[in-house]
C-alpha cells in the first residue's frame, strides 16, 4: 500500500522476485493519479505495465473508504506492507490475516514518533531502522520483525541522507519478510520501553546537522 508511485516501483523491483510471495500493489489517495503522472518515466511505465497485468490497483479514495476496504478483504491478504507517512487506519490493519508491516526510520522501541533518526543523533545513540507490525498506536506495534542499526551515509546534508535511507524500504521489507518466513524466526518484542518523539526545533536540528557532518567528516559514519 503506497501513496506514491516511487515506493511502489521500488517495492516491485525489490520484492517482485521473492519466492513464495504473490505481491500486489495498491496506490491510494486523493492525488494519486497526479503523482503517477509526475513520477519518473521508468516508474510511470512500470506502474502502467503492472496495472495492465492486474498486479497494481489505484484508487483516489482513502484506505479506510468502504470500497477500498472491500477490495482489500476480497483478496484475503496475509501481510500488508505500508509505505506512507500517514497513519494506517485500524480497519485496514485488521484486513490482513497476519498484519501490516511498516518501516520506521529509527530504532524501536526506544525512539518512537517523528524525527527519530535526528533525536538518536542528538542523544549520541545508534541510528537505525525498524520493520514492525502496526497497531493503532504511534510506533507501538508489539511485534518487531527487523531492527537494524544503520549509520547515516555521506551526503550534502542529514535530511538528504535520511531520505536516501527511506528509499531503501524495499530492502528492509525484503529482509523482514525473509526473516518472518525463516524457521527460527523470533520477533523482538516491543516491551513499551522508549519515548515518543516529536518534530525537532530549528535549534536542535542545527545541532544534529553539525554533529552528523562532523561524524561524516571523521569517517565515523559510512
Amino acid at each position, binding site marked *: 500500500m503506497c501513496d506514491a508511485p516511487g515506493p511502489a516501483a521500488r517495492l516491485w523491483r525489490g520484492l517482485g522476485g521473492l519466492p513464495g510471495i504473490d505481491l500486489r500493489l495498491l496506490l491510494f489517495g486523493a492525488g494519486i493519479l497526479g503523482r503517477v503522472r509526475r513520477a519518473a518515466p521508468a516508474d510511470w511505465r512500470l506502474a502502467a505495465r503492472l496495472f495492465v497485468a492486474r498486479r497494481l490497483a489505484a484508487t483516489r479514495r482513502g484506505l479506510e473508504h468502504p470500497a477500498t476496504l472491500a477490495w482489500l478483504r476480497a483478496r484475503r491478504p496475509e501481510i500488508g506492507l505500508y509505505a506512507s507517512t500517514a497513519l494506517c487506519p485500524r480497519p485496514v490493519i485488521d484486513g490482513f490475516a497476519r498484519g501490516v508491516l511498516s518501516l520506521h526510520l529509527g530504532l524501536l522501541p526506544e525512539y518512537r514518533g517523528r524525527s527519530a533518526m535526528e533525536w538518536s*543523533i542528538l542523544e*549520541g545513540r545508534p541510528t537505525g531502522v525498524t520493520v514492525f507490525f502496526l497497531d493503532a498506536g504511534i510506533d507501538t506495534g508489539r511485534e518487531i520483525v527487523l531492527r537494524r542499526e544503520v549509520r547515516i551515509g555521506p551526503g550534502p546534508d542529514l535530511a538528504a541522507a535520511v531520505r536516501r535511507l527511506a528509499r531503501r524500504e524495499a530492502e528492509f521489507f525484503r529482509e523482514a519478510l525473509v526473516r518472518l518466513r525463516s524457521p527460527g524466526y523470533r520477533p523482538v518484542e516491543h516491551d513499551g520501553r522508549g519515548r515518543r518523539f*516529536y518534530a525537532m*526545533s*530549528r*535549534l*536542535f536540528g542545527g545541532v544534529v546537522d*553539525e554533529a552528523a557532518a562532523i561524524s561524516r567528516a571523521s569517517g565515523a559514519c559510512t
Partner: protein
Amino acid sequence: MIGRGPHRPLLRTALERRRRELADLLNDPPGAASRDPIPGGGAAGEDAEETLRRLMVVQWPAVRRAPQDGAARDAYLALVARLEEAARGSDPRFLDAWNHAYEAIASWPAALREEGAARRTLERYAALLDHHVAALAGAA
C-alpha cells in the same frame, strides 16, 4: 543534563547562541534571568508526557496555523509553562518544546511578542537556557 559525550560542546554553543538572540529580544543579558518557576508551572502530579503530547500534537500545530488566534496562543503558552520543571531535566524533548515556543514567538509581530504570556514565556525560556548552559559548562 541534556546531551551525551561528543555533542555536549555543540549543544552548549547552540544554547549560548540562542541565549544571545533571546537577550537581544528581551534586552536582558545572559545569566540575568530569574530562576523562580512560573506560578502553577509544572504542578506536582502532572503527567508531563501527556502534556508534551497535547502540546506538540494539538496546540503547537494550531498556533502555527493561526498565530493571530488569541485563544490558541493562550492555550499553547499555558501548556508550555506546565513543562518548565520537566525542561530543566535531562530529557531534551521538554526543552525542545520551549525551543519551539521561542521559535514561534520570535516569528510573531512585535505586539504579540510583547503580550504578557509571551513575554513571560521568553523570560522563563531564558532561565532554562541559563540553567542548561551552566550545567553543560560544568560538565566540560
